[in-house]
């Protein structure tokens, strides 16, 4: 296993882009929580607040034609990928203008244009899918990679082990990005796994691994690039464990009774936005006005998304059964 350290000096343009995306996601999701309280967004809503560095750092390492398979906590990945905030918000409102015409909601964001394959609410469900996407690329002679994001909870699923084996056996270009936030809903990793070193599990399949501070977006980006370089070389899959933390409860229904308040506060002190801002200011590549400007732009983007969703329309009920099959079923 490689312990990956960030490069010493950070190019300003890259750092600024990473910071901007993290703030965009943070502002978007804060507004989502607010809209949930207003009953504008319903169903399950899983916030990524605290974990933004993982999606932002990793997605920025992808090429435009690489594929992403994500989980039900995927607003951040979609936004980092450049999926329209307006169409994401409209989907969360359940509107016709949403990415999935209101069929998916928060957990099922899809975008063919950016090769964003969901939005999968079956824990571990995205893993075999990613293996297949990579297999299709290999069989068609395309040098693309597939990045699959999943939580540490998915490591307990058979799908993880079967997919790791298949990807390694066939040396497929899959980057397995494990977002270890230490809790599978309310169950701590130490309470559910006999082996809590996730890299050891991946190594059992002969897959190279690295473990990264998932609160440090630069470290995440660096590690994701290394993993994707490996994958693109045709050297087979790569597994990265990003250690991170969600500040909010699992979903809006979760009273969060299983975590120690002190633990949450300790992680918040390591916040990814604060960490990068602090570093950039220390290096002289960001001042307070720069930050306020990008924050204001993020808030404006979110408000445009809300306005777009508000102005959206409802899919006609007569179209309930559309997009079921290529032709209507009887």
């Amino acid at each position, binding site marked *: 296993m490689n312990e990956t350290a960030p490069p010493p000096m950070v190019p300003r343009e890259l750092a600024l882009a990473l910071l901007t995306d993290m703030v965009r996601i943070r502002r978007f999701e804060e507004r989502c929580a607010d809209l949930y309280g207003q009953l504008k967004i319903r169903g399950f809503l899983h916030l990524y607040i605290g974990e933004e560095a993982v999606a932002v750092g990793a997605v920025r390492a992808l090429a435009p034609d690489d594929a992403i398979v994500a989980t039900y906590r995927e607003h951040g990945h979609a936004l980092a990928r450049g999926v329209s905030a307006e169409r994401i918000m409209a989907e969360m409102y359940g509107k016709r203008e949403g990415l*999935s015409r209101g069929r*998916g909601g928060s957990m099922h964001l899809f975008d063919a244009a950016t090769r964003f394959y969901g939005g999968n609410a079956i824990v571990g*469900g995205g893993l075999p*899918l990613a293996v297949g996407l990579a297999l299709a690329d290999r069989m068609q002679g395309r040098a693309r990679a597939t990045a699959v994001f999943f939580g540490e909870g998915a490591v307990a699923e058979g*799908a993880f082990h079967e997919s790791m084996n298949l990807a390694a056996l066939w040396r497929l270009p899959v980057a397995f990005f494990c977002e270890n936030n230490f809790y599978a809903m309310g169950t701590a990793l130490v309470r559910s796994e006999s082996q809590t070193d996730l890299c050891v599990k991946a190594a059992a399949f002969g897959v190279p691994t690295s473990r990264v501070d998932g609160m440090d977006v630069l470290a995440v980006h660096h590690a994701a690039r290394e993993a994707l370089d490996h994958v693109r070389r045709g050297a087979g899959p790569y597994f990265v464990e990003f250690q991170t933390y969600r500040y909010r409860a699992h979903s809006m229904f979760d009273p969060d009774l299983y975590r120690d308040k002190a633990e949450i506060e300790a992680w918040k002190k390591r916040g990814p936005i604060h960490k990068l801002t602090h570093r950039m200011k220390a290096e002289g590549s960001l001042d307070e006005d720069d930050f306020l400007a990008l924050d204001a732009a993020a808030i404006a983007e979110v408000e445009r998304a809300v306005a777009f969703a508000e102005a959206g329309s409802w899919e006609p009920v007569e179209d309930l059964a559309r997009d079921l099959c290529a032709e209507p079923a009887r």
Partner: protein
Amino acid sequence: MKISYREAMREALREALARDPRVFLMGEDVGKYGGSYAVSKGFLDEFGPERVRDAPLSELAFVGAGIGAALGGMRPIVEVMTVNFSLLALDPIVNTAALYRHMSGGQFHVPLIIRMATGAGRQLAAQHSHSLENWYAHVPGLTVVAPATIDDARGVVAAALALEDPVVIFEHALLYNTEGELTDAWRACDLRTARLMREGRDLTLVAWGGTLGKALAAADELAAAGIEADVIDLRVLRPLDDATVMASIRRTHRAVIVDEGWRSGSLAAELMARILEQALYDLDAPVARVCSEEVPIPYAKHLEDAALPQPAKIVAAARRVLGKAT
């Protein structure tokens, strides 16, 4: 030309592989072993290991990978040994393949074929003999077919590929060795309609897959007693072709459904419900059904025979709905 069901299916797969470079086979023992029912025998040499891909015993992962490959532009044909083993892959089939087109608002679709053997009759006992076609036929987003004839075995793969959506093909294990004439009708195989196999006037027998032959045998026996039966090969288990079934019942006014699945919650039950909804006033007698007994399919030959629909049971049911003594 007289060929076996196995040969018809093999030819269908060979044609698909030869015609379209996006098509590949994947599953347990499809390559080196030649297919657990010898359907893909010789393919490894003919098409190579990339396109005839032996998978580990990981039904969840290789069916899920088939879905991913379909999303990625390929046309995978995944073989799962038997319907009993397919339960290990129910999650990707039901939670992913069937949903993606709808859940993505039409952005993605899954042109995937999943083949599996089904059914009893070879003394393989309870974990290799069940008929769970109705589980799959319950799910919107899937097309479910049960080819019973040589022509349909030959035509089903091309028809399934043309749909561009997930198709589950059930091949009754007892059919592989059956032989028959391959006619030009195979080119007209579609995955939306049932077919009238034999025309009568006294009652309608509806069967599919492994029970079609038994229904036809029962019809022969009934004919010898002067009773003429329509025999419908349902062929497609989702979506159901109500029109063909109702048209027959409107002529015969009586029906017996033959289903190798267990009676409770069966496809036979669904067909009976539709007949009540659409043709109640055309009926001269309650609809009857012949299903498997509600026990795990047993090993011993006499017990297995007793558990399954048989021509004699179909004949008896037909005579009952006709009000004739058995």
